[in-house]
């Protein structure tokens, strides 16, 4: 196993009220309802180092899932017939076992989602990613924080917007985002700063119009995702003096109707070592599933995991603000 390159983690975000306390004030608790998705983080290595990244991913990170652990992922998918494998990172394509994992999961009939950062297809050996995705009928979900260069590069790094537009063009060329192709290309909007996302339908309409008019590009859906107050984004909030205001905003926007749809209720998150979490955010905080539950892929037991009590923190307000936020966008 590689030696982890551990980054200093900022102290947890401070909210004016505890998340569990807020739930209780509405007569709610947070418990899983099913396991529709196994969301696997295959490593923190990335060709980008985005300012909002909750993974703290970058080209310097060395944590990466081994083939042995990837085989355990496939074994869990096979034994428990989990409908969807959601592969994330880092840039998951940089894991040497990535293509094997996708192929094996698809051979089982599992729906495979890849959280693809677009620019990685310009890395050496990754040029054929659009064709690989098409061959395996992968659903591609890609971040594009805005349809203008300034905002996108401000969050994701200089030059990222231009590369992202070219990558979207290549995905469109092989059929992604085209009506009737069955090749799904969804985009993700993250606010470029300390504010909440706009209404998903409205901003999706703007993105469709602007990307078509400016670049003749198409995609299926735009998901708005709230920035979670953890890791690199939390450091930004603190540096810029926005933490208190942002946390107050999240708490004031708490929507009890969003609780039923948050993603931890229908997925189990797996880290690069095979350890289990309630979501990718908890994973980055090293907040594992409750201690009395199976802790690793080797111990995976859907019977207990599917109804588990979710581990929470102040960051959970990010998923319940306004229309809610999940890996698939709004939840209400």
């Amino acid at each position, binding site marked *: 196993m590689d030696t982890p390159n551990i980054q200093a983690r900022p102290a947890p975000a401070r909210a004016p009220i505890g998340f569990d306390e807020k739930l209780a004030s509405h007569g709610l608790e947070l418990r899983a309802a099913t396991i529709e998705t196994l969301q696997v983080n295959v490593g923190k290595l990335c060709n980008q180092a985005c300012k909002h990244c909750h993974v703290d991913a970058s080209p310097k990170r060395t944590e990466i899932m081994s083939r042995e652990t990837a085989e355990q992922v496939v074994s869990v998918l096979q034994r428990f017939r989990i409908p969807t494998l959601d592969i994330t990172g880092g840039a998951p394509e940089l894991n040497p076992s990535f293509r094997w994992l996708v192929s094996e999961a698809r051979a089982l009939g599992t729906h495979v989602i890849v959280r693809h950062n677009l620019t990685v297809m310009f890395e050496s050996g990754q040029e054929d990613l659009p064709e690989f995705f098409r061959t395996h009928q992968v659903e591609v979900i890609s971040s594009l924080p*805005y349809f*203008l260069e300034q905002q996108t590069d401000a969050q994701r790094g200089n030059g990222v917007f231009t590369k992202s537009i070219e990558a979207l063009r290549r995905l469109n060329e092989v059929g992604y985002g085209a009506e009737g192709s069955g090749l799904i290309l969804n985009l993700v909007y993250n606010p470029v700063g300390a504010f*909440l996302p706009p209404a998903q339908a409205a901003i999706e309409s703007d993105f469709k119009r602007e990307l078509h008019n400016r670049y003749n590009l198409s995609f299926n859906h735009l998901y708005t995702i709230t920035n979670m107050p953890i890791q690199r984004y939390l450091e930004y909030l603190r540096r810029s003096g926005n933490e208190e205001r942002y946390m*107050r905003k999240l708490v004031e926007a708490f929507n009890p109707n969003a609780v039923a749809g948050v993603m931890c209720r229908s997925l189990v998150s797996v880290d690069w070592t095979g350890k289990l979490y309630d979501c990718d955010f908890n994973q980055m905080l090293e907040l594992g599933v409750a201690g009395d539950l199976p802790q690793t892929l080797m111990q995976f037991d859907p019977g207990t995991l599917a109804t588990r009590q979710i581990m929470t923190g102040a960051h959970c307000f990010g998923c319940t603000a306004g229309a809610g936020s999940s890996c698939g966008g709004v939840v209400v």
Partner: protein
Amino acid sequence: MSYYEEDDLSRFGEIGKHRPDLFAKFMDWYQACQEDGALSKREKALIGLAVAHALQCPYCIDAYSQSCLESGSNLEQMTEAIHMASAIRGGAALIHGLQAHNSVHKVSM
């Protein structure tokens, strides 16, 4: 003490401690105005930003800058809205120049 405190924006509700019935009526009306209607929330937020600049209200400028971002506007669009408000303010001042001209002409040979 400054006349304008940033934290006062989030204390707006305290106005309702006295005559809460009037404040509740105002808030109902205010909230209803923000919702999607014949105009979208985003258009309304841009109007709010423009009016905030015309009124030069720092609370409103702060609040509607956030509203514009959270309804999907970018800084170019927001700046255009601010120019609209400023241009109308400027034009409104300038057209009063005719009043001055009229006044001067009235007493001139």
